[in-house]
């Protein structure tokens, strides 16, 4: 039983780390979009990971993902760790030069990403402090 599996591989930690990874990727994609606001023919890129994430974890609002066979397992920790978000292309209508980067939208997405990143980092630290407290037994 390695330390990695013991301390850092429970579901919440893996999910948080994956969330942070996705926010970093979103940041790069938005930066690329903003840098290419004048490039003719450039289509804005987007990462929409939430749906895939929710489906994988079975936490959607509408239906609980049910298994047809009792031997089908819920996604394991390794599957979660290996999930990669896909970059897809924005479907906004473009301007005459073929570029469809909407700078306001990109700015809003950027603010969203930054807030999400900060929130996830704080949660990660908070949760880690509970484990640390258990280890030190509250005696400093």
């Amino acid at each position, binding site marked *: 039983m390695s330390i990695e599996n013991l301390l850092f591989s*429970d*579901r*919440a930690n893996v*999910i*948080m780390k*994956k*969330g942070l990874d996705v926010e970093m990727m979103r940041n790069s994609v938005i930066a690329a979009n903003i840098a290419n606001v004048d490039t003719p023919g450039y289509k804005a890129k987007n990462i929409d990971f*939430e749906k895939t*994430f*929710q489906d994988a*974890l079975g*936490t959607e*609002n509408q239906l609980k993902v049910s298994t047809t066979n009792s031997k089908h397992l819920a996604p394991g920790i390794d599957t979660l760790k290996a999930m990669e978000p896909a970059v897809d292309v924005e479907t906004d209508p473009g301007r005459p030069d073929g570029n469809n980067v909407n700078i306001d939208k990109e700015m809003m997405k950027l603010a969203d990403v930054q*807030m999400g990143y900060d*929130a*996830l980092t*704080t*949660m990660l630290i*908070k*949760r880690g*402090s*509970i484990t640390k*407290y*258990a280890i030190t*037994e*509250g*005696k400093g």
Partner: protein
Amino acid sequence: MSDITIQSGLKSILGPGITDDAKGQAPKLAEGQKSFGEVLSDSLREVNQLQIDADKAIEDFSTGQTKNVHETMLALNKADTAFKMTMQVKNKIVEAYQEIIRMQV
């Protein structure tokens, strides 16, 4: 290995309340009252449930299920505080036990 003088001394002081049959039995509780052990295990179960709820709140936030940061932070803080209090209670109980053990009869 019973000390006859202590037992007979106790009987004379406390009257017929203490008998050999009652030795080692837990005191009878009134209706609806819980024993200390039950209270402890219920509290532990509650604290554990708070941890589970905090994890669920984190999951919901990360997957975009809920956009409310404050919900998640509140759940996390509840779990943190409850855990800290439980830890200190456990420390005190262990301390008390050690002090009793050290007592010289």
